[in-house]
Each structure stands twice: as structure tokens, then as C-alpha cells.
């Protein structure tokens, strides 16, 4: 790459040299000067200059103030901001006065009050007084945009950030500006709610209090809260978030921009599902089975005695079902206790995992800069790792070819090509690595189903070296976490096990089939580390004190009874794991924006199991997927109910054409014996020969299906 061309310009008398193509707002920032903005947000695409807050006097140019955000730095440009130019100051003053003409003075009531750009900029640049003596306009409020978002039309300053996000970033095209001029209103179509996986971002984008979260409504003010930087544990992306807490409760989740991971976006699952911490059926005390069908809550002391008894009685015939949402420390602690203390080496992982892809490790942001992105595996990316879908969309907007079927020529011909595998047949990334190696790619991703499946697997294998055959019959099944407790395969194992110990947050999942239930905690209540799908080790922080002791605390107590040395502190446990698996990086150095470890050298030879995917003659192959808004935590957040999947089947456009099916038509999907009737949705992001249905509606369908109208 050649040295970047630079331009030199003068801003308020300060000469500054910036790379060519830098926006004026950023150039001013480089000179240490602020150009105030409302609508400008580089992540939303080209600037629109809607709010006029950035007016500056610029030479050469017309003899009137210009919107600085729409211009890029040019050589010899002389920019005078409101600091030095009376014309610009006057213009900015007038802009704010105009914005405030229609903006109500309800800051004490408004949720944005205290963290509001309009308040801040008015204070710094605005007129001290208003000449507006007429009554301000009023509208009915709040208007629900969706069960999660409330719109206050009076406060809206029509900066179009939200609609630009909807149309240009999430590309759902649902939030639009209806009508024109002063009557413009941000709205969805008719009475439909804003039903999209990324809808919550518009709340964060809104520079005033027009779009507010219904779940955070009137909950806290900015000076009463504490933002805890942590990482989202709802999907394998591991978006960096800030958990806003007040009085020991999580009140909202905000994104915390990690430019390599999430670019400051967050999906609704990560943003709103924190309410599961207060689920009605949260287990707060250990539950013990007494007699045949009776259960009673017992003290922790008693519960640990019982757990010890269960572990001893099983005599090493123990199977551990992990859910992939444990922290590395927890999984390691559990592994150390069971493997070193009891010689129970058998674990049931939620999915395969492999380190083969470490050779092709690149940050997620590399997708944006690729020329060709091949998305393989047939499962919808947005339902597994929503943010990855945003990166792919951005790549497409920047001119990348996005392939949904492997076109080897196109991939080989591209300067930079990225492979994203989402779906069955990936073998934890091993298949993908083989493919990437064959095609000579620089980067490839495999999207797992669980948030920390890879980390749990690594931690478990670090905890001991010995192996043993899986026990039969199973003396004790330990079910760790809610995802495992909800997994039908684990339930089937439990049928065969003599005794079952469940670690779970929710009574609804754990009650009935366990001999002992130990209360679990959520990712928001733990300290520890997660590995995301890139292979980045990220730090989770305890945002609130859980109502129960966390897993590490009692596992270490239990370990004492089996003479296994185990610290109750994540930092010390991590040190042990890190020495084996992560090159000894200390806990304290992971940091708030953790870096991506360098790619390892290409692994010599990757062994592959069976070929992927059963071939289907004639007919179509059914790919069922777990919808994004599902799982034990989401099911306990009723505000998210409207986001549950629709009864739809996704078809490729080609298949639809050959079947004569139109978008929105009812179709019957049949496989030997069973059939379901669903609405067809045509998708350009699906290869021919595949039909996609969410688990909620796929019923008993087999992989080979036929479709008729």
C-alpha cells in the first residue's frame, strides 16, 4: 500500500494535515476544534446535512455558511467555525433557535435529559433566550413505534438518523419519514410495529429524546446510573456493551463501540433481554428432590452436602452437559473438579469446536473491506450472529460481491475474499478451514451456535489431560446452564441417567427432572472471559450482584471437599487456563477493547470427518434454524414477544419462479408423512434447492421436502 495522500487546510487559524478524503468534522477534530453536529454520523453512510448545526464559513466557496459535515478536506481550504467567524456563529445560533422553536421544554420529564446532545449543544452554542412566544405545537404522545420503542413527535428534530439507519445500515426499510415539511413524522407502515432485529439502535442514535426505549422509560437519570463495560453473552459475536445499572439492577444495555467487532451496533436480543435477570421463575435457592415427586428449597450448606453425596455415589460415572454460555473460568473449574477430583472426563458439548480456523483469523471488520464475501452453510447469519449480517451488508454496499453459493472462480479472482460459514456441516470450523486453505483465503469465519462454545471446550480440555470411556449407564448427569437444560438431546440423556444435577437460572427449565437444582447466574452477573467467533478473548464484568452465589464460588467450595485446589476468583482461575491455552496473557490485560490475537501459522493437515450435508435428490433441502429471538432468556422477556419468528418459509427466487410461488403466498411444505403450511418469503440470500424454516414452525419435517401451493 502506498503512503496515503494528505491535504493541508486551515481551521480557525490552525493548520492541519489530514489524509485526503477526511470529512471536515474529523479534520477539525484533528486540529482540536469541535464542529457541533446532530445528524452527522459516519457509520450511517454519506452525510446529509439535515440539521445545519455544522454551518461554517469556508473558503473557497459561496459567500455563505456551508454545512461542514457534507464536505471533505481539500488542500488550501480555509475553514472558520463559530469560534472565529461571526457569520458562522450567527448561523449556528439561528439554527438552534429554529430547532428549539418546535422542541418542547420538557427536559425534566424526558429520558434523554442529562445525556442529550441537543441540551449540550444548546448550552454551548445556542442563544440564551428564545423569541418564540407562541404556544408550541403539541402531539399525542408517546406513540408506540414498537413494543420496545416510543416516539415523541414533539421532540423530533428531523435529523433522519433513525430512518437512515433503517434504510442504509440495517436495510430493513421499515422506519421512514412520512409526509413532508413541518408535518414530517417518523413512522412505520400503518400500525405495524418496527419489527426488525436491529430496531433498538435507533434509540441510541436519536440525538434528542424522540425515540426512547420503553423498557428504560423513566427508570433512571444519567447522574444516578453506573455504566459497567462488559460483553454481551447472547451470541457468538460478543458485542461490547455498557450495562447501565441503578441501585443494583440492570436498567438498559448500550453498545460500546469496538470498531473491529460491532462498530457500535447491537441487536435487540442483546439490548433488551437483560430483563431475564428478574424472571418470575428465577431460582434463588437450591432445590432438592425429597421423596418421589416432592421438592423443597434447601440451604446452600445442605445443597453442597447433597451435591457431594451425588458426586461420590456416582463413582466416577458422571457425564457433564455444558451449554456453551459458561465463562472460561467456570468451565475450567467444573472440569478441574470433575476430572481431577473424580476422574469423570466425559462431557457433552453443545456443538463441535475446532481451532483450525485460527490460521485464518481476521477481525470481523475485515468482512467490510473484502471484495468477495462467500456466505455458506445455508443457515441465516442474522439469526445466529446478527452483527455479522450488518458487516456483510456493509460490504455489499461498498461494492463487494456477496455469494450465497460457492463460486470458486470468483473467490480465487478476488483481491480479498472472506468466507463466512453459518449452518450445519461446518464441523466447528474445520470444514471452513479446509475450504479456506484450498482457496488460499486470508480470512474465514465459522459462526457457532453458542456464545462461548469454543471457550468452554478449550477450558474443559485444559483442565486435565486424561481421557476415559463414556460411562454406561450414566450415574450422574450434570447439566450446566439453561441452554443445556433446554436442549432435547440433554433431556434424552437425563432419561438414561440415574441421577441429575442441574445448574439453572429458571425453575421452569430445571424443575421436575432434577434431583438437585443449583441456582445459576447470567452473563451479566459474572466476572470472567468469553471467546467470540473470531477467537478474541473478551472480558465479562459483573454488572450487578446476583441474588445467588456465582458458580465459581460454590464450585471452589465443592472442590475443597474433593481435595482439588481451585480459586474462587476468576482472575486466578484464568491465569491457570491462560498458561495452557492463551499464551499466558494475564486477566488484567484483556482490557475493555480486547485485541485480536495474531493468526497462527497454517495448520499442516486438517482431518475431516464426513462430507457435509446429506444430498437430496429432487425436491428441496430443508434447513431449520434456531431463531434469534428464542432461548431461555429471551422467552422470559415479554417485550420481545413480537419479535418471535413469523410463520414463514424462505425460498430462493429461482426456486420460487420454477414453482410459481409469489412472495407472501401460502405454501405447503411436505416431507414423508408430515406437512406444514407457511407463508412463502422470497430471499435473494439463499441458494436454489434450499428452503429455510425456523424451528418454531418446522415441526416434524425431515431434511428432504417438497413444496406445493
Amino acid at each position: 500500500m502506498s503512503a496515503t495522500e494528505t491535504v493541508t487546510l486551515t481551521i480557525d487559524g490552525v493548520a492541519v494535515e489530514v489524509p485526503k478524503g477526511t470529512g471536515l468534522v474529523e479534520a477539525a477534530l484533528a486540529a482540536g476544534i469541535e464542529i457541533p453536529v446532530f445528524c452527522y454520523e459516519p457509520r450511517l453512510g454519506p452525510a446529509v446535512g439535515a440539521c445545519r448545526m455544522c454551518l461554517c464559513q469556508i473558503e473557497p466557496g459561496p459567500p455563505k455558511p456551508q454545512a461542514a459535515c457534507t464536505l471533505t478536506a481539500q488542500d488550501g481550504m480555509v475553514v472558520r467555525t463559530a469560534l472565529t467567524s461571526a457569520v458562522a456563529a450567527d448561523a449556528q445560533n439561528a439554527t438552534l433557535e429554529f430547532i428549539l422553536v418546535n422542541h418542547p421544554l420538557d427536559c425534566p420529564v424526558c429520558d434523554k435529559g442529562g445525556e442529550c446532545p441537543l441540551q449540550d449543544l444548546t448550552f454551548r452554542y445556542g442563544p440564551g433566550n428564545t423569541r418564540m412566544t407562541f404556544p408550541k405545537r403539541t402531539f399525542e404522545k408517546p406513540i408506540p413505534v414498537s413494543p420496545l420503542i416510543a416516539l415523541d413527535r414533539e421532540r423530533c428534530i428531523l435529523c433522519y438518523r433513525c430512518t437512515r439507519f433503517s434504510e442504509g445500515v440495517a436495510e430493513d426499510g421499515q422506519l421512514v419519514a412520512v409526509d413532508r415539511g413541518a408535518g414530517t413524522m417518523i413512522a412505520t407502515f400503518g400500525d405495524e410495529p418496527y419489527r426488525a432485529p436491529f430496531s433498538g439502535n435507533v434509540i441510541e442514535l436519536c440525538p434528542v429524546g424522540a425515540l426512547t426505549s420503553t423498557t428504560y422509560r423513566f427508570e433512571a437519570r444519567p447522574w444516578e446510573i453506573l455504566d459497567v463495560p462488559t460483553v454481551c453473552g447472547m451470541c457468538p459475536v460478543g458485542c461490547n456493551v455498557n450495562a447501565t445499572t441503578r441501585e443494583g439492577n440492570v436498567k438498559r444495555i448500550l453498545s460500546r463501540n469496538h470498531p473491529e467487532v460491532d462498530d457500535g451496533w447491537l441487536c435487540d436480543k442483546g439490548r433488551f433481554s437483560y430483563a431475564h435477570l428478574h424472571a418470575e421463575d428465577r431460582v434463588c435457592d437450591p432445590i432438592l428432590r425429597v421423596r418421589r415427586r416432592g421438592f423443597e428449597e434447601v440451604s446452600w450448606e445442605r445443597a453442597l452436602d447433597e451435591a457431594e453425596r451425588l458426586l461420590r455415589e456416582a463413582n466416577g460415572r458422571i457425564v457433564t452437559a455444558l451449554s456453551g454460555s459458561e465463562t472460561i473460568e467456570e468451565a475450567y473449574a467444573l472440569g478441574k473438579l470433575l476430572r481431577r477430583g473424580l476422574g469423570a472426563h466425559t462431557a457433552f458439548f453443545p456443538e463441535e469446536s475446532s481451532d483450525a480456523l485460527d490460521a485464518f483469523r481476521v477481525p470481523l471488520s475485515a468482512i467490510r473491506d473484502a471484495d468477495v464475501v462467500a456466505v455458506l452453510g445455508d443457515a441465516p447469519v442474522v439469526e445466529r450472529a446478527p452483527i455479522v449480517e450488518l458487516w456483510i451488508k456493509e460490504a455489499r454496499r461498498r461494492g463487494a460481491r456477496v455469494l450465497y453459493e460457492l463460486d470458486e472462480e470468483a473467490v480465487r479472482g478476488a483481491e480479498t475474499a472472506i468466507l463466512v460459514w453459518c449452518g450445519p456441516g461446518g464441523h466447528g470450523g474445520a470444514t471452513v478451514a479446509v475450504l479456506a486453505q484450498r482457496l488460499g483465503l486470508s480470512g474465514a469465519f465459522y459462526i457457532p451456535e453458542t456464545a462461548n462454545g469454543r471457550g468452554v471446550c478449550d477450558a474443559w480440555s485444559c483442565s486435565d489431560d486424561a481421557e476415559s470411556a463414556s460411562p454406561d449407564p450414566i450415574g450422574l448427569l450434570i447439566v450446566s446452564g439453561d441452554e443445556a437444560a433446554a436442549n432435547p438431546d440433554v433431556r434424552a440423556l437425563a432419561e438414561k441417567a440415574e441421577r441429575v444435577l442441574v445448574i439453572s437460572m429458571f425453575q421452569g427449565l430445571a424443575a421436575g427432572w432434577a434431583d438437585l437444582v443449583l441456582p445459576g447466574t447470567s452473563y451479566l452477573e459474572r466476572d470472567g472471559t468469553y471467546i467470540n467467533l473470531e477467537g478474541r478473548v473478551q472480558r465479562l464484568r459483573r454488572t450487578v450482584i446476583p441474588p445467588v452465589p456465582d458458580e465459581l464460588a460454590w464450585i471452589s467450595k465443592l472442590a475443597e471437599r474433593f481435595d482439588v485446589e481451585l480459586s474462587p476468583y476468576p482472575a486466578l482461575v484464568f491465569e491457570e487456563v491462560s498458561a495452557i491455552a492463551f499464551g499466558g496473557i494475564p486477566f488484567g490485560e484483556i482490557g475493555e477493547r480486547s485485541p485480536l490475537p495474531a493468526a497462527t501459522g497454517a495448520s499442516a493437515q486438517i482431518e475431516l470427518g464426513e462430507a457435509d450435508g446429506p444430498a437430496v435428490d429432487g425436491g428441496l433441502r430443508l434447513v431449520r434454524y434456531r431463531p434469534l429471538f428464542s432461548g431461555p432468556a429471551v422467552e422470559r422477556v415479554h417485550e420481545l414477544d413480537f419479535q418471535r419468528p413469523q410463520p414463514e418459509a424462505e425460498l430462493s427466487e429461482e426456486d420460487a419462479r420454477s414453482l410459481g410461488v409469489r412472495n407472501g403466498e401460502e405454501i405447503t411444505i411436505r416431507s414423508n408423512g408430515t406437512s406444514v403450511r407457511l407463508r412463502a418469503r422470497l430471499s435473494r440470500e439463499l441458494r436454489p434447492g434450499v428452503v429455510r424454516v425456523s424451528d418454531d414452525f418446522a415441526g416434524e419435517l425431515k431434511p428432504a421436502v417438497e413444496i406445493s401451493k
Partner: protein
Amino acid sequence: MSPQPLDSVKGFAVTFRQLFKKPITQQYPEYKRPVYPRFRGRHRLHRHENGLEKCVGCSLCAAACPADCIRVVAEENTPDNRVSPGERYARIYEINMSRCIFCGYCELACPFDAITLGNEYEISEYSRDDLIYTKDMLLAEPIKKVPVADRDLYDTPIPYYQDHS
């Protein structure tokens, strides 16, 4: 032996003279001296004339409070439960009187004149818990009354903001 033997006599003379003066001791619980009109005592929350609370639960008083003794938890008004005008009201409003330093910043910060500092200073209790005043207590008339001196006797200038608006 003191160098100036008359000094003690002089001192006692001062004491002796006081015997004939009128005492200035006030028998406090029996006699309550009027406070200045702008004396800052126990807080009051106010209502509008139509009975709705002036407080909207904005927490600005809590933000201004240097002793951090105010706790506000807001909630949304519903048609069935309208507590204040507008959308928001204070579901919980507590002042910890044992921490309050009676600086009056809450009064200054309040955008709706919902909280003022009254003249009552008799707020001792036998338990710390009883010193946490709830919203109901603050909205109600104080039980113990303290006399206030005649406003006209004191030179209280008209505040600037009332004069220039």
C-alpha cells in the same frame, strides 16, 4: 502572688453586674423564637391547585444535592393513576434528613417549584430510620409548627429572577 491584685476583683465585678441585668435565656420548648422568613428548615413538597403533585420525578434535586440525601424513583402516569401533570411522576421520593445539610440546592434545582425548604427545624427522632422522610410525609402539612417572624420586618430584596423576566 499576682502582680496586679485588683484584677480578680475587676473580673468578679463584671459577673456581679450581670446579676442585675434582665436574663436573655429563652425557655426553648415553652417559648419558640420566630425564625427568619428565609430560614431553611424541613422540606415540603407541593401540589397544584387541582390536587396534582408538582413534582414530576426528574431527579434534578438529587443531582444538585451535595449530601446525596434525596432518592427519586419515577414512574409513568396512567389515565387510571394520574399523580402529576405530564407523563412522569415520582413513585418514590425520599429525603434522608439525617444527611441533609439544608443548603437549599434542591429548591434551586427544581424546575417546577415542587420542593421548598420550610421553616420547621424540630425534626429530631429517636431512630435514624424515622429520619427518612417519604413522599407522603413531605406532601403533608408538618405536624409541628414554628412561628415565623414578620416578613416586613426584614429587608428581603426581591430576587433577581422575579424582577427581570
